[in-house]
């Protein structure tokens, strides 16, 4: 009954605006006229006239109400702003300190919120799980190809499954336009049903039903087709597969862990011979949407049974990872906390700490002013103000200040948002700020800040007895002094923690950056090889060596700076049954070792002579081949190079020359490489096996000669374009990749730096306010001291000591806490600095120095005072 609802709403509004009697009067008249209209003019006109009358009634009433409200607010604003204007310096310090703190806090809250919002935009987000597999030693998000359909068939609790696999980098051509695309995914058609990635054009049910259909994001569609409609047009992949565009998709939101630019059907991958209906083919990510998320454990047990029946020799243990937990919690090995969630905790803590420091500042300054306000309180009480009035006034004042600070903080956030985005590599927009949760959160922050900071004056000052205050016998000395000092200690303590944290992060970052990675990464570029360029690698290499001055050309299967695949189950002469290391591996071109300048500690590198060292092609096909090479005969003389870490895990000595069975193929260990970082530098160097197979080169690596880099690059480009006219030349520097590896540390360092600057600034603002207040309070004491023979220097020292003592104490308390936090953070790194005392000493010196600078002006001014003037200041 919609009619009734309207009546209720009107009743509600009316009783808000006027009292019950007036409401009744108005209602009676409105109903009277309405029924009269109904009889005379029919229901339609009656309804119209009624609506006009409603507007005419409520309009003026609302205007009246607003006027009345404004008057009240206006009055209290006037009171508060008078108090603020009376002490401009204090007010400025108060408001700017709080605003800075709030702005910083808001940024951190935004960041944390954004990180936590990942993947929640899917309609059924909480019921979607990724099926991971724990193999003997390795946990992987990749699962057997037939797993998805098998789950759908055998596990009734699962509503739908979808498989997803990355295509790696592909070359796309539409007409004249050719680009590399590295965010291509192959998925089951059910992918679009499980996840809420809306299609702008095309039918989600049928868009992926043909093996050669394809879905593009808006951005990609514009890139290839401009303003033309791309639907039904053709895109050529890797120069050999033609796809028809069957759908245009909205761009994937930034807060999605699944990122892609284009989707092709998983069925298409069969043409590569890459995905085979065999349980040994572990290549796809499997997503499962449950009917009820509470049944995850039951589903897990059933999948475990599936694994045991299908892979009886070595069944992996499945694990269901909730989609919404992936961003923050996943990607870590079992038993390890992920870096992301730690950072989220850290930043949340930091947000609270900074807000706390700002609020403490505010409380501190209000406390300091308390004796000045005490007189006011006394007078007000004498005139008849109740304690409740006063509490209201003080809270009102502090809420007003918090409100002003909030407005300032919001202004700061708006102005600084682009810089923050650049810093944190986020794409938060002003629009993403305007959400009811955020607005409520901001108001909440202001409210809590106002309450926290207003509590002391409101609750303590309002209890002053007017007689004592007015007679001047009230001492706000010892007790409140202690509170104030405790506040200063807390404030500086927090500043010290942030400061030490910053120093530790920067030091660790520096350490990682300058760490010897085990090969020479300077002047090294790599180019991804796609389609025909793979078969042409040798031609490219020959011509490069012959025609340019480059120092070396080689190739590799894995991504050059980030090897991804690992296996266990290697066997070798002299292995004990317990030894079963999980080993990373890659096929390389025979010139890899010399080009990269990797040191060989035992044995020899691969021989460049093309007859000896090749791995059994069958082995590679089984593990990673994308194309079946033509008739290569198994070679018993497969050569393996192992790294020192593997050599250690294999028992150490005399491994060169031993026979080794790896990936099911026999070979010989020809040498041991010095450990080098083949993944990010943060990660521990894991066991590694390299073998040669020029046919499986996926990346060409070129070492440019020292000197004119752009000239050398131009030379490489010329050769590339001669050999592969259809493929654009897109290269990357190893250095670039290395810079990217430290992104999260760099971000954290910068953010912490700003937080440290802020914490110290706010702490100093507080200290400054306090120093000027105390100096003022002690003028007479100082005057007497000087009359009795104290020197200016002596007085200055005395005043400075007073404050520095507390800053020192803050360091003493905060350092152990900072130590514990830093230790925990550093524990996440395989290679880390040891925590020396230097960071702590630096933090101590810095805080003491800054504190001294802050109070020096006031202190010196007070110390140089003419005693004759201040002693008789009454």
């Amino acid at each position, binding site marked *: 009954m919609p009619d009734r609802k309207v009546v209720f709403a009107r009743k509600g509004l009316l009783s808000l605006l*006027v009292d019950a009697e007036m409401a009744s009067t108005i209602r009676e008249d409105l109903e009277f006229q309405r029924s009269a209209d109904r009889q005379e003019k029919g229901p339609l006109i009656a309804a119209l006239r009624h609506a006009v009358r409603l507007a005419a009634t409520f*309009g003026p009433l609302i205007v009246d109400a607003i006027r009345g409200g404004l008057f009240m607010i206006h009055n209290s604003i006037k009171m508060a702003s008078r108090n603020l204007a009376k002490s401009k310096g204090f007010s400025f310090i108060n408001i700017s300190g709080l605003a800075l703190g709030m702005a910083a806090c808001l940024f951190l809250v935004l960041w944390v919120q954004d990180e936590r919002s990942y993947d929640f935009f899917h309609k059924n987000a909480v019921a979607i799980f990724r099926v991971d597999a724990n193999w003997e030693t390795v946990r992987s998000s990749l699962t057997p190809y037939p797993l998805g359909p098998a789950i759908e068939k055998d596990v009734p609790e699962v509503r739908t499954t979808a498989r997803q696999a990355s295509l790696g980098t592909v070359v796309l051509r539409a007409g004249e336009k050719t680009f590399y695309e590295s965010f291509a995914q192959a998925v089951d058609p059910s992918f679009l049903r499980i996840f809420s990635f809306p299609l702008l054009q095309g039918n989600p049910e049928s868009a992926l039903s043909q093996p050669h259909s394809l879905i593009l994001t808006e951005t990609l569609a514009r890139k290839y087709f401009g303003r033309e409609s791309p639907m039904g047009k053709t895109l050529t992949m890797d120069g050999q597969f033609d796809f028809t565009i069957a759908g245009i998709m909205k761009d994937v939101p930034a807060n999605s862990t699944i990122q892609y630019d284009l989707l092709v059907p998983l069925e298409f991958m069969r043409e590569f011979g890459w995905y085979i209906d065999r349980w040994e083919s572990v290549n796809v990510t499997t997503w499962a949407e449950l009917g009820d998320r509470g049944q995850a454990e039951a589903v897990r047990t059933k999948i475990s049974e599936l694994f045991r029946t299908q892979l009886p020799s070595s069944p992996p243990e499945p694990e269901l990872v909730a989609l919404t937990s992936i961003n923050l919690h996943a990607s870590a090995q079992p038993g390890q906390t992920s870096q992301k969630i730690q950072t989220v905790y850290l930043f949340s803590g930091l947000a609270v700490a900074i807000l706390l420091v700002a609020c403490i500042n505010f409380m501190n300054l209000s406390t300091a002013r308390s004796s000045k306000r005490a007189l006011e309180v006394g007078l007000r009480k004498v005139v008849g103000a109740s304690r409740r009035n006063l509490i209201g006034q003080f809270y009102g004042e502090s809420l007003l200040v918090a409100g002003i600070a909030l407005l300032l903080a919001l202004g700061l956030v708006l102005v600084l948002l682009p810089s923050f985005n650049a810093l944190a590599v986020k794409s938060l927009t002003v629009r993403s700020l305007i959400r009811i949760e955020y607005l409520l959160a901001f108001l909440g922050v202001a409210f809590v800040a106002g309450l926290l900071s207003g509590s002391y004056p409101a609750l303590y000052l309002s209890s002053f007895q007017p007689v004592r205050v007015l007679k001047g016998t009230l001492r706000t000395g010892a007790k409140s002094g202690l509170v104030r000092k405790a506040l200063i200690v807390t404030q500086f303590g927090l500043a010290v923690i942030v400061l030490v944290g910053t120093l530790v992060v920067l030091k660790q970052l520096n350490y990682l950056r300058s760490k010897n990675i085990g090969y020479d990464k300077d002047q090294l570029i790599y180019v991804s090889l796609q389609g025909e360029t793979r078969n042409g690698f040798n031609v490219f290499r020959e011509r490069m060596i012959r025609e340019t001055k480059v120092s070396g050309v080689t190739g590799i299967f894995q991504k050059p700076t980030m090897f991804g695949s690992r296996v266990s189950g290697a066997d070798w002469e002299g292995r004990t049954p317990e030894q079963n290391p999980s080993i990373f591996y890659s096929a390389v071109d025979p010139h890899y070792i010399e080009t990269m300048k990797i040191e060989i500690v035992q044995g020899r590198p691969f021989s460049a002579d093309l007859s000896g060292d090749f791995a059994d092609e069958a082995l590679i096909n089984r593990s990673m081949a994308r194309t079946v090479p033509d008739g290569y005969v198994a070679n018993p003389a497969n050569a393996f190079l192992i790294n020192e870490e593997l050599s250690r895990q294999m028992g150490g000595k005399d491994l060169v020359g031993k026979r080794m069975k790896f990936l099911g193929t026999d070979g010989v260990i020809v040498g041991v490489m010095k450990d080098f970082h083949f993944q990010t530098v943060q990660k521990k160097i894991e066991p590694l096996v390299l073998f040669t197979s020029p046919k499986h080169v996926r990346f060409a690596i070129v070492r440019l000669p020292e000197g004119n880099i752009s000239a050398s690059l131009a030379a490489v480009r010329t050769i590339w374009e001669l050999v592969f006219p259809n493929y654009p030349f897109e290269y990357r520097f190893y250095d670039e990749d290395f810079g990217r590896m430290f992104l999260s540390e760099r971000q954290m360092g910068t953010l912490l730096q700003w937080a440290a600057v802020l914490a110290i600034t706010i702490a100093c603002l507080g200290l400054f306010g306090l120093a000027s207040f105390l100096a003022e309070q002690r003028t007479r004491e100082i005057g007497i001291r000087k009359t009795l023979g104290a020197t200016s220097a002596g007085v200055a020292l005395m005043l400075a000591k007073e404050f520095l003592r507390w800053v020192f104490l803050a360091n003493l308390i905060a350092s152990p806490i900072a130590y514990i936090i830093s230790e925990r953070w550093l524990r996440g790194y395989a290679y880390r600095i040891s925590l020396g005392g230097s960071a702590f000493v630096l933090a101590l010196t810095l805080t003491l120095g800054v504190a001294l600078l802050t109070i020096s002006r006031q202190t010196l001014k007070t110390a140089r005072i003419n005693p004759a003037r201040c002693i008789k200041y009454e």
Partner: protein
Amino acid sequence: MTSLTRIEEILLLAIWKLRDNAYGISIREQVEIDTGVDWLAGAIYAPLNRLKKKRFIAARTADRPGEYGGRPRIYYTLTPRGREELCAIQAMTRNLWAGVRLLPNDTGGR
């Protein structure tokens, strides 16, 4: 000097004229008769509310058994303050018009 707006003044006078029979509908109808304007109901209630808040008028609840489903009706009467105010207005209006003879086609010598 009175602090009432014109509509407040008109309302106050209407309530005075209605004596014991001043309630929402009757007040509106009286105002319509006095001014010759078809007042939209709403326009009188904001000023009526103001008069009540300024305590120039007081409300009184009267039960009407049997009528309108037995809902009580609110009647308004002038408070002593309201009466004083109305007297002051009357005096002022008289002063303002004293000695002025205004005829429909008198242009005032201009």
